[in-house]
């Protein structure tokens, strides 16, 4: 996982506004992708993105500069989504996924959008994070471990099962067309 340079990181920790903006620009795309996929709702994801970086700003002084800033920020985002999910219990993916998620893309078919929606609707928010963090953004198991608190071994097993179930779904639903 890429990290912002140390000078900007230290300046942000010291309270430099420009450095904080640079930090937001650097890390927000990943946070956005994860919260968007975990919640499936654009408005909710926007709120959570905002909440994440407000919390980052509040806690930045306490950040131990020797650890990875990326996983620290992702942990804040992850916890914000979990807290929000527990609080409102309204992120039911089959309801929350809307057309916003699929706007502006080039490659896929409607069937594949539907498939992603169906698959994600059956997963817990923790599993959605695992899937996106590992398969889309390429975080290592150790990085995901430091975000979620689950051991790398457990995560590896969970992801293996997840991918197996996804593969099985494709086998079970042969009507889905190949888009490319």
């Amino acid at each position: 996982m890429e990290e912002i340079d140390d000078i900007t990181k230290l300046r942000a920790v010291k309270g430099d506004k420009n450095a904080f903006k640079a930090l937001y620009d650097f890390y927000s795309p990943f946070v956005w992708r994860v919260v968007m996929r975990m919640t499936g709702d654009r408005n909710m994801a926007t709120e959570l993105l905002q909440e994440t970086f407000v919390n980052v700003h509040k806690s930045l002084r306490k950040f131990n500069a020797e650890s990875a800033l990326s996983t620290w920020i992702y942990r804040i985002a992850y916890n914000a989504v979990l807290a929000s999910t527990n609080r409102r219990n309204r992120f039911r993916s089959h309801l929350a996924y809307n057309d916003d998620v699929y706007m502006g893309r080039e490659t896929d078919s409607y069937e594949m959008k539907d498939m992603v929606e169906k698959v994600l609707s059956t997963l817990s928010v923790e599993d959605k994070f695992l899937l996106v963090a590992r398969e889309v953004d390429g975080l290592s198991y150790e990085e995901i471990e430091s975000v979620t608190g689950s051991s790398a071994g457990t995560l590896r097993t969970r992801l293996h099962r997840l991918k197996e179930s996804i593969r099985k779904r494709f086998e079970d639903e042969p009507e889905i067309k190949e888009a490319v």
Partner: protein
Amino acid sequence: MNREDLFYEELSQVPEMPSGVYEKVARRAALHTSVRNSLLALAASLIMALGFFGLIDKRTQDVALQPEVADELQIISDYLNGDDLEQEFENYAFIGGF
């Protein structure tokens, strides 16, 4: 590209980040900073006020006379005002056998 690959490609597709989020974050962060600074200033004022009044109180205690000194001063005062004469007469009467 097989369907599974397409699935993971699809998974990575999300709408563009909404604009204006950073501005909201910056506003809330600035508000938080000013509230925190105000609370710190209030706490510092309270500490200083408590320290000031504590110091005054300590000085008051410091200038209060010790009982022994107060007794001595009372004796001197009685001597100067003649208030101790009656006691003195009694003492002399006792010693002189009057």
